[in-house]
């Protein structure tokens, strides 16, 4: 009997260990494969030129720029919106209010909606409804905003990442001791002063963590932007909010499925995927740097 328990113990340890090794192995294979096949073409030329010859030559600069611009626009929208939502729910709304329960339910559902549905929603709501509406009212029916554009893609992406920011901010707000709020009130703070002077500085780390997660998600998603603004091929960079743009993830998708010459495209494809990974890491890393700078400035915080 004792032998059997012992054997079961060893087997279990082996199985759980194996699961871990499997994960590490998969990551190593994916990254290794991309690195080995992607490195040779990863030249400065590749990073700074537009695609040529039907994606079989040239670089991917417009896609890098487009992804950057998209993520930054998205961040500008999603952080204020997400933080405001979380602050209302946690600091203003009465506890156990129907409104908050409804918002929370909506956010949970939003988090569960497939990315492609966001893409279709963006097409239907932002472009067809808002964009066309703006064109009718402001531009006498000329086609200005009623078409796929980086603005609509960024808004769609912001909706997709909204739950992440709301949840992270709420966590951060929950972690602030209630006693800090009471001290602020006892010293004559209004609610808004209390939020601005105590809550926001204390929550900024958590808010930025939410931002980082949103950026990670946003810079890799293809489905939300494929109907709302990403272009198949567009050597010009977006300079206005209603311009279309190239996006790395979408570019990968296009090269995989639409290339006239699969073999010629393959090395470019590998390098593009590598760049996409590096860019995601870079964006993440920058956000983490900003967070640690802010934390250092608030070194008396938690």
């Amino acid at each position: 009997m004792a032998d059997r328990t012992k054997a079961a113990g060893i087997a279990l340890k082996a199985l759980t260990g194996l699961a871990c090794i499997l994960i590490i192995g998969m990551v190593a294979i994916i990254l290794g494969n991309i690195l080995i096949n992607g490195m040779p073409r990863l030249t400065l030329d590749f990073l700074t030129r537009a695609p040529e010859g039907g994606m079989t030559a040239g670089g991917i600069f417009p896609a890098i720029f487009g992804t950057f611009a998209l993520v930054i626009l998205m961040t500008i929208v999603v952080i204020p919106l997400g933080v405001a939502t979380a602050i209302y729910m946690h600091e203003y709304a009465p506890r156990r209010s129907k409104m908050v329960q409804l918002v929370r339910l909506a956010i949970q559902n939003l988090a569960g909606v497939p990315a492609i549905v966001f893409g279709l929603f963006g097409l239907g709501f932002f472009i067809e409804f808002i964009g066309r509406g703006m064109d009718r009212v402001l531009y006498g029916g000329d086609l200005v905003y009623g078409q796929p554009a980086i603005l609509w893609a960024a808004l769609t992406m912001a909706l997709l990442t909204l739950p992440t920011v709301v949840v992270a901010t709420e966590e951060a707000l929950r972690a602030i001791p209630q006693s800090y709020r009471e001290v602020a009130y006892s010293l004559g703070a209004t609610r808004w002063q209390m939020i601005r002077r105590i809550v926001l500085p204390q929550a900024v780390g958590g808010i930025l963590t939410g931002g980082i997660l949103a950026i990670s998600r946003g810079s890799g998603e293809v489905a939300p932007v494929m109907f709302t603004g990403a272009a198949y091929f567009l050597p010009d960079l977006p300079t206005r909010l209603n311009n279309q743009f190239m996006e790395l993830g979408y570019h990968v998708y296009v090269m995989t499925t639409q290339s006239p010459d699969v073999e010629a495209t393959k090395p470019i494809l590998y390098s593009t995927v590598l760049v996409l990974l590096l860019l995601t890491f870079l964006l993440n890393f920058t956000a983490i740097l900003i967070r640690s700078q802010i934390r250092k400035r608030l070194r008396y915080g938690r």
Partner: protein
Amino acid sequence: MDASAVTGQKQENPAVIRTEELRVQAGGEPILKGISLEVQRGEILSIIGPAGAGKTTFLRCVNRMAELDPGIQVSGSVTLDGRSIYSQDVDVAMLRRQIGTVFSVPIPLPMTIYENLTFGLSLSNHPRSAHAGLVENALRAAYLWEEVKDRMDEPARNLSGGQQQRLCLARALTLVPRVLLLDEPSSGLDPISTAKIEEALQQLKTDLAIILVTNNVKQAARASDRTAFFLFGELIESSPTEQLFTKPRDFRTADYISGRFG
């Protein structure tokens, strides 16, 4: 209480804080069952009583912090200098600036010592040039000036527990309040820190009305001019401290101060 004595006192030294029939319910449960008390400038009123007597709730009604908790209902009247603090036109933030509060555990805000002290000032339109003077006065009054005058830019949490509580006292004093509320201010402190706070209170009371909630019967006997005894949300007795401790009128007061319960 002798009615003529009250009116006699009122003429020379009117009550700063007066509560009448103050009742509080939380989710239908009564916490305070009609408390009528007053405190004047120049005196320290201590409130004693076992846990659950409603001492803290009483304080939280005076600075209108009670309403921050959901499900709390306050009725009856509380006046500051004769004006109801629960009337519609009262600016709660302005009111709280006139009522300093020290909590039972030191709560330094996550900032420097100086930022803690100027926090209240910076919320209103006090000119920045006046901050340093108000901070120094408050620190001297809290017997903390000598210990922190060269450490103003250190994080407040670097201070010891006793220093932190005096910092919290000083922080409340920077706004030059009319009333000071202390909720068991020395519950976690060593005897020396406690003594310093009590000494500070004796100096402060010339300009202030002070309400001191304490679990420590000896502290009430030492530090206060009048003592009120609360039990299960009722005011059992309030008398000059010496009288309450030597000749309590109610047997429950006698039992409590002699340590037979609570």
